[in-house]
């Protein structure tokens, strides 16, 4: 799963019937330090996330498993809304593998 922030919404009237009723949100991937990283992506939403919210999303085939037994045609789904992130990176001098 990846961290991201909801930055927009896509409206589509003509779409595959297996997308009917799905909210399509624009997500900006972010780092644990909440800096933007990479390019924006369109996600379906399994959580009711809103604009500006920090979320985590699931990629690939597993994204559609959020809707089983419905076969929603998606490759990216918002699967959780993040309340808190507890991050502690090691100080400089990462131990070598």
């Amino acid at each position, binding site marked *: *799963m*990846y*961290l991201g922030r909801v930055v927009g919404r896509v409206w589509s009237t003509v779409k595959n019937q297996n997308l009917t009723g799905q909210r399509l949100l624009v997500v900006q*991937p972010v*780092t*644990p330090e909440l800096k933007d*990283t*990479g390019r924006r992506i369109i996600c379906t939403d*399994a*959580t*009711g996330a809103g604009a500006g919210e920090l979320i*985590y999303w*699931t*990629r*690939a*085939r*597993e*994204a*559609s*498993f*959020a809707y*089983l037994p419905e076969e929603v045609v998606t490759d990216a*789904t918002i*699967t*959780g*809304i*993040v*309340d*808190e*992130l*507890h*991050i*502690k*990176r*090691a100080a400089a001098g*990462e*131990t*070598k*593998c």
Partner: protein
Amino acid sequence: MLIARVIGEVVATRKHASHEGLKLLVVQPLNLDGTERGDAVVAADSVDAGLGDRVLLTLEGFSAMSAVGRLQTPIEMAVIGVVDTVELKG
């Protein structure tokens, strides 16, 4: 699989029902020389890994879902081991 470092944890109350009770770790994938490899990701924990641990990370759905015993759920990354040592020759 990749080696990664556990750098944090996600707290989420509103989430997909299949994620209830899962520990979600923020892990930073690493190169074999210990440098960071891309951005940190969120992975389900199957080995009770802790902050700072060096772990084995799978990025494939079936193995991730199997590891946490939740097949057919939206989980594609899981921590499936705690790394003790890595030996490199050549």
